[in-house]
Every structure is written in C-alpha cells, then in structure tokens.
C-alpha cells in the first residue's frame, strides 16, 4: 500500500506557516477571496482605466502574498490551471468581429483584444487569489470554513471524501500503471485507448466498491447523514477587519478608477 510517503495530491498546495494570513479563520479567508474576485469581475473591460485597476489588484495580492510568506514560484505554479483560459482569450483576439488593428503584423480584433485581455487579467487575478488561499489554508480547514459558511452538508461531505481519497485512488491508479508497464505496455498511439479505457473502467468500479464499504463503515458507527464536527471558536471583529481588508482595498481601487477614469 502507498503508506508513509508524503502525498502529492491536494495537500501539496499548502505552504506551512504561522503568519497572520495562516492564522486567520478559514471561512473569513473564503469570504475575502470571494469578495476580491467579485470586485475584479465587476471591473468594466472596456474602460480606459481598467489596466491600471488590474495592476492595482495585482499589487494588493502581492502584498498579501508577501505577508503570508508565499513566494512568487508558488504563485506562478498556481497559474497552470489557467492555461485553458489563456487559449480561449488568445482565440478571442483573432475571431472577434468589429474594427481591426495590427499587432506585430497580425490583424486582430480591437474589441477582441480588450475582451480577451480583460478575461485573461480577471482570470489571472482570481486564480492568484485562490492560490494564496490554498497556500495558506489546509484543505480540511477550508472544508470547515465552507461548513461555517453554511454550504450544504452533502457538498461538504463530497469535498471531504475527495480530499481523503484522492491519494488512495491516486495510489491505485499508480499501481495499475506500474503493473501495465511492467508487462511492456506503452501508450504510444490511439490503439492504447483499448487498454486505457477498461483500466479507467476498473478504477471506477473499484472506487465505487470502496464507496460502498466506506458507507458500511460509517453506518456501523452511527452515521445518520450528518458529519459531526467539533466545536468552533467565535470570531472577533478584529479578524473580520483583517480578512475584509483585501476585498475592501480592491473595492477602493475600483471606485477610484471609476471616479477618476
């Protein structure tokens, strides 16, 4: 079994620390990130001052990252999830209609450039904020945060099982791959799907059966549909102020932009 060794998986996004950002209650951080993302999304794409506002948001995030002790490398790696958005944004630049302009000798759409650029900037800022959240909050703490924000129990439980079993299922996947390759299999061409398809299927069946066994184990210990959690500490006004300073500062940037610009 894949015991003992440190998991890749979801916990790998966490950067241990004891700074003020780490210590902040997870549900406050969730609210802060959500608020920040809303402000970012609310920034009008076509406004002339939009790029300046994006820059302001970025500075805010970098300040928080600095306080939290999260390095630029960690932030950069978080951006890899954004790649599909980047492709879409680049596509927009070429396929949008309307007046066109020349960039590096290529004919591109003006509105496409604004919309694509805005999309890219907003996605990048939101992903960076989420990366900061993941880097300063352990996955299970995030779950408790979601629970405190009254996310439905079923969703919290699904997320919790995902976190708990990501490594277990990942380990199974790894062992299946090792077993395949030990017998000379290499996924070189499309024909390999004939092997990989059933492998995915059997992984699904195994996981499904595990789910049934876990459910049995839960019933045996008195599970009634609710996951009992421990006591939660009350949150002081100070923590709220700290947490909300990020979205409020972002809001101030937005307001300044729309007033001055």
């Amino acid at each position, binding site marked *: *079994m*894949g*015991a*003992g060794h*440190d*998991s890749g998986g979801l*916990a790998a996004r966490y950067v241990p620390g004891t700074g003020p950002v780490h210590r902040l209650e997870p549900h406050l951080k969730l609210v802060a990130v959500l608020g920040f993302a809303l402000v970012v999304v609310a920034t009008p794409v076509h406004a002339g001052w939009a790029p300046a506002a994006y820059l302001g948001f970025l500075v805010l995030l970098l300040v928080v990252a600095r306080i939290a002790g999260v390095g630029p490398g960690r932030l950069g790696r978080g951006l890899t999830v954004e790649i599909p958005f980047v492709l879409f944004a680049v596509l927009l630049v070429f396929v949008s209609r309307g007046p066109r302009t020349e960039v590096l000798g290529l004919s591109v759409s003006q509105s496409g450039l604004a919309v694509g650029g805005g999309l890219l900037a907003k996605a990048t800022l939101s992903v960076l904020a989420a990366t900061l959240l993941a880097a300063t909050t352990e*996955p*299970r703490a995030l*779950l408790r945060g979601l629970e405190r924000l009254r996310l439905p129990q079923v969703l919290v439980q699904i997320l*919790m*099982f995902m*976190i*708990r*079993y990501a*490594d*277990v299922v990942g380990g199974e996947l790894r062992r299946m791959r090792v077993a395949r390759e030990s017998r000379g299999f290499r996924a070189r061409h499309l024909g390999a799907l004939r092997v990989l398809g059933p492998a995915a299927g059997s992984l699904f069946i195994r996981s499904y059966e*595990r789910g049934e*066994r*876990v459910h*049995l*184990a*839960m*019933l*045996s*210990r*008195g*599970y*009634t549909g609710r*996951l*009992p*959690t*421990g*006591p939660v500490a009350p949150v002081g006004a100070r923590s709220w102020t700290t947490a909300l300073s990020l979205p409020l500062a972002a809001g101030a940037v937005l307001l300044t932009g729309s007033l001055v610009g």
Partner: protein
Amino acid sequence: MSTPPPSLLVEDLAFAYPDGHQALYGVDLRLEPGERVAMLGPNGAGKTTLVLHLNGILRAGRGRVEVAGLPVAGRDLREVRRRVGIVFQDPDDQLFMPTVGEDVAFGPRNLGLPEPEVGRRVADALAAVDMADAADRPPHHLSFGQRRRVAVATVLSMQPEVLVLDEPSSNLDPAGRRELAEVLQSLSVTLLMVTHDLPYALQLCPRSVVLDGGVVVADGPTRELLADQALLAAHRLELPFGFDPRAVR
C-alpha cells in the same frame, strides 16, 4: 438471577442475498462477556455476511441476533451499533475523516456525547492502541499497521460491548502484527475475530468456531481445533508450513 446476558447471541440465523444466493443456513453462536473467540473459515464461508448481521447492516431472513440482551432490530439499532464495534479489513475504508482525531471522534459525536466527553474518549481510545500522539495527523500519513490500530481506536471510542475484527492481521508486517496483538491482548472487551490466520487465532483467542457453507461446523478450544488435521482439511484451513499448535505454549 445475577448472570449477565451473553455479549453476543446468534440463534438459527439464516440469510439469502436478494439475488437468491444463500449465505447463511442457520448459525448458532454465543459469546459470554469478556470471551475472545476466533471465527475461522475459508473464503466464501459466510463470515463477512455474519459480521454484517451483528450490527444490523443486514437483516436476518430467519433467526435472531442479540447483543447483551438487546435484539438487533429496527428500534434499537443506534444502541446496537454502539455496542458492537466492527473493524473492517481495509483501514482506508474505516478511516474516512481528514484527521485521526476527528475519525476517532466520529462515533462518539454521532452518539451525541458532550464535547469534553468526546475529547476524553478520543484520548483514551488512542492511548489504548498506542497511537496517542497521532490525533492531528491525516490517516494517509500513517503506516498500514498504524492505520489498522487507529481503526481499532475508532470503535473503542464508542465503548463497545463486543469488538468484531475482520481479518485483523491481513497485510501487516510481522512487527505490525505483534503490535496489534499486544493491543488486542490489553483490551478487556468481548472479542470476535474473523480470520484465516490460524496462528493469530491461537495466540489471541482461547476458543474458536469454524464457519463453512453458512453453518458453524466446529466450536471448541482453539488448540484442539487446530490439532484436528481432518477438520482443517475438510474446510480448507491450513496451518503455515512447520507450525505445530501443540508445540506453542
């Protein structure tokens, strides 16, 4: 009339799965308080099916099950599940909460115990399996043997009347096996251990029953059963090479 009721009483228990496959044909079993009994039998003998009847996950087609005098039936199921602690074979099935401590607290919290009592139970249960310092660790960071011991703690925290272990020694290395044996020996609960690890049964359980074909085919002192070559051979039970149950003190 002061004799306590048996910890576990199974009478004429029969069960068929919905697809018609009959797994149990009338099982009788009686465990007195504090007894340690091994249930031996080949794969497919109906051991796991029987275990799932003990806390009412499966309902008897015929016959009855009682835990310390309480019938395993609809109304008292919650109390039955407190009294019967089942440790399943794969600790990854048993440990589903993010940390060891939360997992051990799962049962007591479901019982609605106040938080200080939950904390006490968690500490006691983890200490009983020699894992006191693991409360804040996620289960996947533990070794397999440690996870198995934590799985035992997750039901100990409910203070069960009967502890039921499904193949407790499977996949353990020799050291993990010995550590678990020491833990189990130190507990004072009634123990039912489902296994085909015969030396382990001899080490931990003075009494054994053999289940095969959905019925109990033998019931007696473990040492005598294991010395009965004909019995073992008839039910696909085999001692490890060179192991002589009479030579073990």
